[in-house]
């Protein structure tokens, strides 16, 4: 996947390194959340002083980013929001990559065999999936389930977003299928499953990683949109989208309440986009 030459290209790409830096920093922020914050994210600290004008108390040594309208520590809520945003995005992407790659490889493999019907049916399914108003579907399922938990968000996001991946992996599989050594393996009587696993998967892994990286960015946006539209995880759970939605009402007095989660969402998406572009350039150089 990442041979030495790709690795060298990646290391020379400044944007990719910045992206990697952002992603690692946010990852650490999420992992170390309990250690970094003295206050639980859902605890109201009513001892937080009010400013003389009566507005919410701003950044202080006690509360690094101040408190929100319910006297909860913003820094701590952001850190726990990072856990949810990044965790959901990574797991949902894993799910959609596994499904998308499996469907894509199967469809591509059977494209020119007698079992072409498998390819046709799977690709029709992908066509239908791509015609769905994706965000609407996710929202409808989220709202109709009533009680939204982390696993429902994960499943809904993961299972509604694999269609594009499947289409890409299919076209790559068709290319790989015709390669000489794959043909040789087939002639030696390898089973289809082993062929897909041993020869096709390593060859489509590069594009898969690139798509997955961009998909993490999309998942972060999707999760925060759901929270923002109040059909995501219910309060008092701290998510970036909900913090932004709640902070919006205080834009006039305490803009930090909306700005802080907004910056986090933007940085996370930017980080994964940069990383994805860096990986694409490193793995699939168009000009050397």
């Amino acid at each position, binding site marked *: 996947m990442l041979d030495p030459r790709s690795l060298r290209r990646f290391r020379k790409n400044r944007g990719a390194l910045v992206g990697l830096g952002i992603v690692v920093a946010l990852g650490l922020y999420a992992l170390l959340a309990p250690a970094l914050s003295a206050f639980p994210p859902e605890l109201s600290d009513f001892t937080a002083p009010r400013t003389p004008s009566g507005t919410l108390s701003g950044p202080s040594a006690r509360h690094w980013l101040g408190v929100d309208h319910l006297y909860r520590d913003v820094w701590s809520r952001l850190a726990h929001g990072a856990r949810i945003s990044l965790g959901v995005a990574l797991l949902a992407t894993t799910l959609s990559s596994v499904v998308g790659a499996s469907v894509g490889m199967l469809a591509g493999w059977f494209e020119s065999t007698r079992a072409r019907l498998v390819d046709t049916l799977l690709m029709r399914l992908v066509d*239908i999936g791509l*015609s769905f*108003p994706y965000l*609407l*579907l996710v929202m*409808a399922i989220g*709202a109709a389930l009533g009680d939204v938990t982390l696993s429902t968000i994960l499943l809904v996001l993961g299972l509604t977003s694999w269609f594009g991946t499947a289409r890409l992996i299919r076209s790559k599989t068709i290319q790989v299928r015709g390669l000489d050594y794959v043909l040789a393996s087939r002639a030696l009587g390898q089973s289809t499953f082993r062929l897909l696993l041993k020869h096709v998967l390593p060859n489509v892994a590069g594009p898969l990683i690139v798509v997955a990286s961009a998909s993490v960015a999309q998942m972060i946006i999707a999760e925060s949109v759901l929270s923002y*539209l109040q059909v995501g995880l219910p309060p008092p759970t701290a998510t970036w989208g909900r913090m932004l939605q709640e902070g919006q009402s205080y834009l006039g007095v305490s803009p930090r309440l909306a700005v802080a989660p*907004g910056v986090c969402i933007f940085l996370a998406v930017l980080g994964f*986009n940069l990383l994805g572009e860096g990986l694409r350039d490193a793995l699939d150089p168009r000009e050397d």
Partner: protein
Amino acid sequence: MIAHLLRKLGWSVFTIWAVVTATFFVFNVLPEDPARVIAGPQARPQDVARIREQLGLDRPLLIRYAQYTSQLVRLGGGTPGDGTLSLGVARIDLGVSHLKRRPVVELLGRALPPTLLVGSLALVFQLLLGTCAGVVSAARRGTIFDWGTVALTLVGISAPTFLIGLVLQYLLARGLHWFPLDGYGRSFAERLHAAVLPALTLGLFGAAYYTRLIRDELLGLLGQDYVRTARAKGQRELVVLLKHALRNALIPLVTVIGLDLGALVGGAIVTEKIFRWPGIGALSVEAIVDRDGPVVMGVVLLFSSAVVLANFLVDVAYALLDPRVSRGR
């Protein structure tokens, strides 16, 4: 070629049917009870039961599905104002909203013009800005301007729609008072003025995306023989770009516009929510929160038809442009 397009058309209709069916079952199998939502949390069980009966929710799922699809498309023109949409010999009946007690066709008809206004403004905006920025960036490749444009497009691609919307609203409406904060307006001029911010919000992602696409395409085409010929004739760089390279760079753009409709739809939901814009997106959010099944079905049907139609038109354009397609594989 006719056979090819007919096959595509049949497939498009099938896709819409599949989307509608899937949405119907997903929305109706899931646990939360619309009658309970309508009656309110403290309603007596017999009231909830009465509402269920009124809405026909007490009937078996398959019967409800059969009813929905059989009334969806009926032959024969309807009378004006009966809540159906007449399409020549057939009419489309999307049922009645559970909560608003109005025909869904009427609700969609009222919400469509605002969405089309913002959507078309956004499309014009992203095409104009994307093409111009892409051409200039490619013409000045390697300069600070080019570098800055690429950096800006990355920001545009990475900022979620709702973030862009909030920032624009805060800066241009709340801060500078150039535009109204939100709402629709009464006269057309007012509406146009109010539509600028939502359109910018909706179009910024596309503008950034198109800028990159055009720039990359142009840079790829600049190595082609006909470009070298044009340069050898002594034409100015800008003329080479605009007259020779841009025409070819626009071809992938046409494909992307068709595919982008889905992204615009997603963006419209969020944008209309932020700017309180009375369009389809706002209607769909409201319907989903209220568990208003017929309206959700109507919106999904409208959105997926638009996406499928756009893809079909792209196919038609390809078939007309590329003889290889029309002759089949």
